[in-house]
């Protein structure tokens, strides 16, 4: 049985990746062709010609206006996936139509709906507004992960691993030592995991980007909307500096760390990551540092999870694992994902 959660929206790409060149990405095992119409909208359809399955993203396939011409025999499709021309004959077979996908662009992401298009409600797409909003500066990327989606969920819902896997970058002893609070909102379909460190060492990721030299009050508030969007609301301030009673927080540094977890196949995942900040907005040096540092952290996860995937893939189903307090949020996420299947 497929492990994919269908009838859900997934991040397929950054908007900047989609233009007038044919672009392919596999989401939940489905190879999808993306391109931008002359009006600037994103079109999404199967990346396989109905004739002989030639990938439409493969040269010499190409765009002509708002149609895609297969590079093998010239089958031509409109933006809705309907075949509008075939070679050498006037009759177009009735079944000559590509599966098309609902898409929507929000917050710099291109979201695609995997499942019955009749269930595609774009108002259900979870938001990450900081990525495309005045007052914030964002760096972002995507790393291919040769590991199953569930391993990335486990990884991101338990940040105690920062202490061990990401020491010298974002991990300090206090992360693993500080108790968490886990909340599950069943109706909204969101898992929250909070870890508030009152007096913690400042890891290089934040020391070098904010300029703070001493110890910090560090809050990590995770908001995971399965299956795809993960937000880490990160608040950094000198020790003892708290938000005002009126809710303002002018003396803290805020970083919104966003991940989109998109299954590619049963054993591989697209690991989209973005870091948005509300300070040093015009400082390219800070942008470069955060981009390089966060990518390094993501690649540390990628390396660890790739090894873990290889181990798990060779073990029989039902292998024994052990969960402790740090896993409370991850277990909640697993259950919510299971309910979506």
């Amino acid at each position, binding site marked *: 049985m497929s492990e994919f959660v269908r009838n859900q929206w997934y991040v397929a790409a950054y908007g900047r990746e989609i233009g007038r060149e044919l672009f392919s990405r596999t989401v939940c095992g489905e190879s999808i062709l993306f391109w931008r119409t002359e009006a600037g909208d994103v079109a999404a359809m199967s990346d396989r010609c109905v004739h002989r399955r030639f990938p439409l993203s493969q040269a010499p396939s190409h765009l002509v206006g708002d149609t895609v011409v297969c590079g093998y025999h010239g089958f031509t499709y409109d933006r809705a996936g309907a075949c509008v021309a075939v070679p050498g004959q006037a009759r177009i077979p009735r079944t000559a139509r590509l599966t098309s996908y609902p898409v929507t662009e929000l917050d710099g992401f291109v979201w695609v709906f995997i499942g019955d298009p009749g269930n595609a409600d774009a108002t259900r797409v979870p938001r990450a507004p900081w990525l495309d909003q005045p007052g914030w500066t964002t760096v972002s990327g995507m790393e291919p992960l040769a590991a199953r989606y569930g391993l990335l969920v486990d990884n991101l819902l338990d940040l105690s691993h920062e202490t061990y896997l990401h020491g010298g970058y974002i991990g300090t002893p206090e992360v693993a030592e500080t*108790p968490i609070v886990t*909340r*599950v*909102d*069943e109706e909204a379909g969101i898992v929250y995991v909070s870890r508030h460190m009152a007096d913690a060492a400042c890891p290089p990721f934040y020391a070098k980007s904010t300029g703070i030299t001493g110890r910090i009050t560090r809050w990590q508030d995770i908001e995971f909307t399965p299956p795809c969007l993960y937000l880490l609301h990160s608040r950094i301030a000198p020790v003892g500096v708290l938000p005002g009673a009126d809710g303002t927080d002018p003396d803290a540094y805020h970083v919104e760390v966003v991940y989109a977890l998109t299954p590619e196949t049963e054993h591989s995942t697209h690991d989209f990551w973005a870091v948005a900040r509300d300070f040093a907005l015009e400082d390219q040096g800070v942008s470069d540092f955060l981009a390089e540092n966060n990518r390094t952290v993501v690649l540390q996860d990628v390396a660890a999870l790739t090894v873990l995937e290889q181990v798990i893939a060779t073990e029989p189903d039902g292998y024994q694992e052990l969960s402790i*307090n740090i896993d*409370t949020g991850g277990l*909640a996420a697993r*259950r919510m994902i299971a309910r979506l299947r």
Partner: protein
Amino acid sequence: MTTRKVLQVDWVPGSDNLRGRCHCGAETVADDPVAMWQWLLAHPDHQHPFPVRSEDA
């Protein structure tokens, strides 16, 4: 005050205990997150609805 159905598990500071609160108001303490979720998700049939120990309250 929210009216949403929220389940909450607090890792009790200074201990290895977890305190779980169901949206119905039921509470329990456990030291195993798997058991804790089983208890919470059994709503409304929470088994062993023992009261929170006074030292944890």
